[in-house]
């Protein structure tokens, strides 16, 4: 009992540390890659290749002045970053990132918890992330923040539906809601669900981009219109918490895509954890690539696309998959 608890705590600590580091270095990677794609150099000053830039940024953010807007609803203003931050990390509790390994003579499963409705857990927790965004915008008592948060909330609710629909195809094929079972159902490369669910995969990918407020769906923080959207009025660590939450959400969505469509941690030759990281990094790279390539949608285009294109396609995909499974 105690031993299990200690193992669980160690796993949580390791995963938390890994994601926080990953978030910091995804910011670095994004700046570097986007710079290269635009024929610039990106960060080069701090450390070799600018590798210590995230550390410098962290120190800067910690030491910046903490500003609380005079007219803000103080209580909600302080809680909002936490409400965005915490759900972004809780989702990792059910994502399997490796096979069972033997460490120090003990068998350790490389996931925090095998929850038998894992996928619903993730959908539920991510839907709670909306509160951070909405409350941040409302409590700041600023027009830009409010508009940004309303946009983002409407966008997240709309695309959550097609995200859910895109996942149903995979659930029907795997016959389980547990992410461990879904990974096990994709034993070899030819059994990856991306081949049987190509429509579902692209539906998932597009909805996931919109869910995480990333380009080309980054309207909530369209700087030309809204300054910085819902976190315009936030400074120092509270600002950083929103940014970290955004990047953690990207990692979640990438890890979920890996688990649902690309066979999770499974793959030939390399150890499972490495495969998992490679696949997740592929999606992160895709995020950055798309950001450097595509311009932003207009708001009405975004809504029309979500409701009139993705939703019907998702419904048809579920119907066809259900018929095929029957």
């Amino acid at each position, binding site marked *: 009992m105690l031993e299990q608890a200690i193992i669980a705590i160690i796993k949580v600590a390791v995963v938390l540390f890994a994601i926080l580091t990953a978030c910091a270095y995804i910011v670095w990677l994004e700046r570097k890659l986007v710079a290269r794609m635009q024929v610039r150099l990106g960060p080069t000053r701090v450390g070799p290749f600018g590798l210590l830039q995230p550390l410098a940024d962290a120190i800067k953010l910690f030491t910046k002045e903490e500003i609380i807007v005079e007219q803000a*609803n103080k*209580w*909600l203003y302080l*809680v909002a970053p936490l409400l965005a931050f915490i759900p972004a990390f809780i989702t990792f509790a059910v994502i399997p990132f490796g096979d069972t390994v033997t460490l120090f003579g003990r068998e350790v499963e490389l996931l925090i918890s095998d*929850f*038998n*409705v894992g996928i*619903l*857990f993730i*959908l*539920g*927790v991510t*839907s*709670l992330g*909306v*509160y951070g965004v*909405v*409350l941040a915008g*409302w*409590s700041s008592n600023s027009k830009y923040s*409010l508009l940004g948060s*309303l946009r983002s*909330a409407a966008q997240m*609710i709309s695309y959550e539906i097609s995200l859910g629909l895109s996942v149903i195809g995979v659930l029907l094929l795997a016959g389980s*809601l547990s992410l461990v079972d879904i990974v096990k159902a994709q034993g070899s490369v030819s059994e990856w669900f991306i081949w049987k669910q190509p429509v579902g995969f692209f539906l998932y990918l597009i909805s996931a981009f919109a869910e995480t407020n990333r380009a080309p769906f980054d309207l909530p923080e369209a700087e030309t219109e809204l300054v910085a959207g819902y976190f315009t009025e936030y400074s120092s660590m509270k600002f950083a918490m929103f940014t970290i939450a955004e990047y953690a959400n990207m990692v979640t969505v990438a890890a979920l895509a890996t688990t649902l469509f690309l066979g999770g941690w499974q793959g030939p030759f390399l150890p499972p954890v490495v495969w998992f990281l490679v696949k997740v990094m592929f999606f992160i790279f895709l995020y950055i690539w798309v950001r450097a390539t595509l311009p932003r949608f207009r708001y009405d285009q975004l809504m029309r696309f979500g409701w009139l294109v993705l939703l019907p396609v998702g419904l048809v995909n579920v119907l066809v998959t259900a018929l095929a499974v029957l």
Partner: protein
Amino acid sequence: MEMAVFLGAGFVALVSAILVFTQKNPVASVVFLVVTLAAQAVLFLLLNAPFVAALQIIVYAGAIMVLFLFVVMLLNLGRDEFGPEKRKFIRPLAVVFALVLVLEVLAIFKTGLLDQARLTYHLDFTGDFGTVAGVGLLLFTRYLYPFEITSVLLLAALLGTVILAKKLPGRKGEL
């Protein structure tokens, strides 16, 4: 361990439920309602009903309450709307309803209606109660008609809202 989780979740649920109506600020009320619903999800988990717990979070805490929050925010309900003069006739009514509720709860526990209901509906909180398979099976067998009728009702409500929100040519500028 289970007892500790139960007491913790129950305490959070009760306290935030009380805070829902003691808050002057409607947005804070909505936030506490979300906390109550999330704590209830934990209670469902303790009943071995993970699917119901997940639905509680997705549907109530995640979807319905966001819409509540939207309405409260967009109508910009201030503190004035809940001023003392509007509460005058509510207070006696509240006392009456509270009494009725307490009597009902007492009656259910005293007369053993709860056990009777459990027997008639074969409610047993073990096995596949509250799992995906269990809930799905019940929805498509015993509760098929209520389930389908509810969906028609929701569709009707949806269409009604669309028609209400749509600007008809005859009533320009009314909304």
